[in-house]
Structures are given as structure tokens and as C-alpha cells.
């Protein structure tokens, strides 16, 4: 497939998804939809956006280290569609992996004489990160959002707000008759 065509297709799909979220999803759910899109862009970013920043950062750390290890094993080359269609599609699971694959895609990963022996497991690591990110994206839609704090209602004009209750008076101290 033509790389320029791929860019247009993927960015078009993201734009259509963003439009659908903005137009059809309810106001309260819109934040979740933005988190869904952010989760595709960067693994864990959706959780950070929805307030689960510890979980999001942990997920980002796990996913990025797995991805970097996989890329290290395959010699920092992205897999093309002609190399292995399954591993290639797995790179679409995240915006970052897709971007890296597009940048490195000019140089084919396979077949090469100097490929390391663990080449296939390395591709599996890269592919698994993309596929796991799909799970994280779906999980952002399932997160329980923190309820917004209730806003303070100003008293109506002409209505005197009740005074706060006074603390009970301390018991009288008995003086010593002597």
C-alpha cells in the first residue's frame, strides 16, 4: 500500500471518529470519547486524561518498555505489509507505533541477512503492544469517572440564610467555697 495513502486513511478514520464522538455522544460521555482517542494516540494517555494518572503512567511505562525491547530485538526496523501482514496490522493499535512504523517504514525489516535470531519474537513484542493498546482504549470507555463536586448554591434574594449552630456552652466551673 502507498504510504501516503495509509497516512490519509488512518488520519481520516481518526477524524471521522472524533466527529462522531463530538456529534452523537452525550455531553457527559464526550470526555470519555476524548480519552478513547487519546488512548489510541499514546498508550495510557486516556487513563491520565480521565484522572487515573498513576495507572496511566504505569501502563505507559509497561507498554513503552515492551515496545522498545521489541524494536531493539528487530534492530529498530518497522515491519511492512509485504513482510508480515499480521504484525503489520498490529502496529496500527497505537498512534505512536503507527508513527514510528511510518517513519521507519522506508527500510524494510524482513528479509535481511543481518537479522538477529530473535527477529520473529521481537516482531511479536511490537505487535502485542499495538493489540494490547486496543484493550486499553476499550477500558477507557469502561472507567468510572469521578463525580463533579456539587456547586455551592447562592441563597435566593430576600432569604436570610440560617446561622450556623453555636457550639454548646462550657459547664460552669464551681468555685471553691473555702
Amino acid at each position: 500500500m502507498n504510504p501516503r495513502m495509509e497516512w490519509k486513511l488512518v488520519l481520516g478514520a481518526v477524524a471521522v471518529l472524533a466527529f462522531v464522538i463530538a456529534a452523537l455522544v452525550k455531553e457527559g460521555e464526550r470526555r470519555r470519547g476524548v480519552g478513547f482517542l487519546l488512548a489510541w494516540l499514546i498508550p495510557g494517555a486516556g487513563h491520565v486524561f480521565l484522572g487515573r494518572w498513576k495507572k496511566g503512567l504505569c501502563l505507559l511505562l509497561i507498554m513503552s518498555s515492551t515496545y522498545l525491547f521489541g524494536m531493539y530485538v528487530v534492530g529498530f526496523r518497522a515491519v511492512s505489509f509485504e513482510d508480515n501482514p499480521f504484525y503489520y496490522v498490529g502496529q496500527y493499535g497505537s498512534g505512536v507505533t503507527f508513527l514510528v512504523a511510518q517513519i521507519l517504514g522506508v527500510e524494510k525489516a524482513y528479509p535481511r541477512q543481518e537479522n538477529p535470531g530473535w527477529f520473529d519474537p521481537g516482531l511479536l513484542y511490537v505487535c502485542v503492544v499495538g493489540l494490547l493498546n486496543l484493550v486499553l482504549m476499550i477500558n477507557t470507555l469502561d472507567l468510572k469517572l469521578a463525580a463533579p463536586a456539587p456547586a455551592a448554591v447562592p441563597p435566593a434574594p430576600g432569604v436570610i440564610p440560617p446561622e450556623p449552630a453555636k457550639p454548646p456552652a462550657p459547664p460552669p466551673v464551681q468555685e471553691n467555697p473555702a
Partner: protein
Amino acid sequence: MKGISYLFLYVPIVLVILTVLETCRSDDPVKILKRAFANFGVLTAVLIGGGAVVYLINRFL
């Protein structure tokens, strides 16, 4: 490196997958790690048991 050396890469990738899946289910880090390692043990035991059965069938039947 071919053959059995691939198995060294089985442990980290399976732990990563199970940890991420458990992270989606729970918020407690201790619970996440416990369940991930427990599931890893069960999965590995099933794989080893299945491999042993296949080996025995091929060897003696």
C-alpha cells in the same frame, strides 16, 4: 539463536499481557501483581502439561 532460546522471551511478554489485562480490571497494585503471577503460573502449568501429554503421545502411541 533458535529453538528453545525463544522460550526466554515467553516469560516477559506473557507477564506484560497479564499485567495489562489485570490493570484494566483492578486499581489495587498488589492485587494486580498477585493475580497476574497467579494467572501466569496457571497458564504455564497448562502449557507444560499439554506439552508433556503431546510428547508422551508422540513417544509411546
